[in-house]
């Protein structure tokens, strides 16, 4: 839920509930007060009736009471109690039934017990109450609506720097030269947030730079010892007393150093791509390059009896020739390396995409980690950097790459 929505929901619920409670209490108080007023009036009238009856030993005629309905009837026993209440009565003047307030009391006249019931119409008072209620509640309601609107506007305005911060943070890339873009705001909290992000992003950047430098230096420094090992092996190979067992060991050592060398070279290449050190972009004719690659790898495909189908359209891309070469090397190389004898490879190039499809004994790769550093399928003899390099090259040039597996074939697609 958005902060906005949550805030508005809480505000709306509390203000509505508050309004209802206040309205109810207010209306009740008002009615009680008005009832009391009517009651007082009724009492006055009753006193007048009592006056009249004690003086004249008769009930006053109906014409004496303007808005009142008065009724007497004989009762056997007298009760001292005065009794108020609400009722519905027939107003003879208007000729309709109305809500009213009555007062009942018993009195004695000429030795006879009577109960008197005086009823006053409540309509006028009710209208009054309604008007008062509306006059008070409607402006409050209006005020609430205005408050809500102002809130909405202010929230939107106030959170602008925050949204900008979020946007800039999302577009922050530790790999890019450009750092976190600052947002200037007069709101202290957001300014502090901005400063904190600036601080963290700078630290992240410098840490990242250090790691890259470390990788680069470590890889470079390792090259000389590997060179020593290699040259020592070359020297050992010249020994006249070389036994068969020693030779076997030498073969293994050669392999291991070759692997170590390749690993180092791959790491260095990754660092160079990360550092944007290979940005000599030019128009590269991919079709021509692919044809050359397929030709170059022919020796390997023929040996494994792999059928290569190429469906290539003209496509030129702006990219580093060196990296384009590595990209195709890795894609085509992988499709041969992980293929089986008699398998096939399909290479398709269109203005929108390049896809390399190959058969393989290995099952589907895990899409989520296939391009991660040092991930490799169990059957792979590589180091797990080839696809990482592919992905880095592709992303450096603003392309994207996807992997899919269906009908027992692996498909790598570069989308330009």
């Amino acid at each position, binding site marked *: 839920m958005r902060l906005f929505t949550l805030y508005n929901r809480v505000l709306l619920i509390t203000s509505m509930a508050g309004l209802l409670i206040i309205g109810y209490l207010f209306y009740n108080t008002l009615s009680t007060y008005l009832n009391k007023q009517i009651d007082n009036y009724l009492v006055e009238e009753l006193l007048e009736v009592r006056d009249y009856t004690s003086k004249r030993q008769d009930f006053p005629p109906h014409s004496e009471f303007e808005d009142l309905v008065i009724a007497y009837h004989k009762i056997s026993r007298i009760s001292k109690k005065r009794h108020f209440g609400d009722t519905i009565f027939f107003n003879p003047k208007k000729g309709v039934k109305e809500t009213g307030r009555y007062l009942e009391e018993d009195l004695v006249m000429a030795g006879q017990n009577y109960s008197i019931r005086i009823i006053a119409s409540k309509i006028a008072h009710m209208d009054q109450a309604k008007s008062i209620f509306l006059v008070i509640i409607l402006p409050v309601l209006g005020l609430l609506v205005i408050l809500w609107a102002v809130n909405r506007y202010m929230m939107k305005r106030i959170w602008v720097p925050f949204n900008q911060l979020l946007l800039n943070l999302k577009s922050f890339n530790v790999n890019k030269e450009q750092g976190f873009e600052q947002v200037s705001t007069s709101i202290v909290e957001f300014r502090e947030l901005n400063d904190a992000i600036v601080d963290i992003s700078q630290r992240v950047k410098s840490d990242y730079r250090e790691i890259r430098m470390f990788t680069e230096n470590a890889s470079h420094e390792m090259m000389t010892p590997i060179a020593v090992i290699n040259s020592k092996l070359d020297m050992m190979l*010249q020994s006249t007393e070389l036994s068969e067992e020693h030779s076997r060991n030498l073969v293994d050592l050669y392999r291991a150093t070759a692997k170590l060398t390749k690993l180092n070279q791959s790491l260095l290449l990754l660092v160079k791509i990360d550092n944007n050190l290979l940005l000599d972009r030019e128009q590269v004719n991919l079709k021509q390059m692919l044809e050359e690659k397929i030709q170059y790898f022919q020796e390997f495909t023929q040996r494994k009896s792999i059928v290569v189908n190429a469906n290539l359209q003209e496509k030129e891309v702006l990219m580093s020739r060196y990296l384009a070469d590595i990209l195709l090397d890795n894609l085509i190389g992988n499709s041969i390396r992980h293929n089986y004898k008699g398998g096939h490879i399909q290479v398709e190039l269109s203005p929108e995409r390049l896809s390399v499809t190959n058969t393989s004994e290995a099952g589907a790769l895990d899409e989520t980690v296939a391009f991660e550093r040092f991930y490799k399928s169990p059957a792979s003899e590589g180091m797990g950097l080839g696809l990482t390099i592919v992905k880095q090259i592709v992303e450096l040039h603003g392309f994207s790459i996807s992997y899919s597996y269906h009908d027992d074939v692996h498909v790598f697609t570069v989308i330009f």
Partner: protein
Amino acid sequence: MKILVVEDEQLLRDNIADYLKAEGNVCDLAASLDEATEKIALYDYDCILLDLTLPDGDGLKLMRILKKQDRDDGIIIITARGSVDQRIEGLGLGADDYLIKPFHLSELSARVLAIVRRRSFKGNDLVRFNELNIDIQSKTVKVHGEPISLTRKEYDLLLYFMANKSKVISKSALVAHIWGDHADMADSFDFIYTHIKNLRKKLVDAGCKDYFQSVYGVGYKFSAE
């Protein structure tokens, strides 16, 4: 040939020198820029192997000195940093070749030979070995004066062996020489075996003695013995 090895890593320096000396070359050694500057002031060299990252400075300085003196010593840069910029700068300053560490000594030997040959026998690009005769310019191979046809890879291999006569060359080095960065594609070294088998057959069929010897499973030797 007189070769100067400028390399601060002692083990590597000694190995290079030992390997090249066995080919009948004379090797001088320098561990720093100072030593190297001293050496080039005293002697002319057919080839200088130059490491760029030396303890007392950039190896490129030595190249600037040589260039200023208008010397024509052949130079091969050997470096751990294979950056494109450095390569361009090195070649621009007059380096003849550029070898990135680690490398096989047989590869180095072949590169040295190629440079020395290019510099000292101008116009005469013939390499001879008994009845074998290679013209580097036209890339033709003759046995007993009769030309034989080789594929490019077979030709490269033969030349590589000729540059490392009587040395055992590892399959690793052969694979790296032929396929470079794609060396790992040629799994199990079967490719090299096939290429050498074909090369051998062509040479023997043309009446050439079989100079190839297989050394257990680790490599090959090209030798008259």
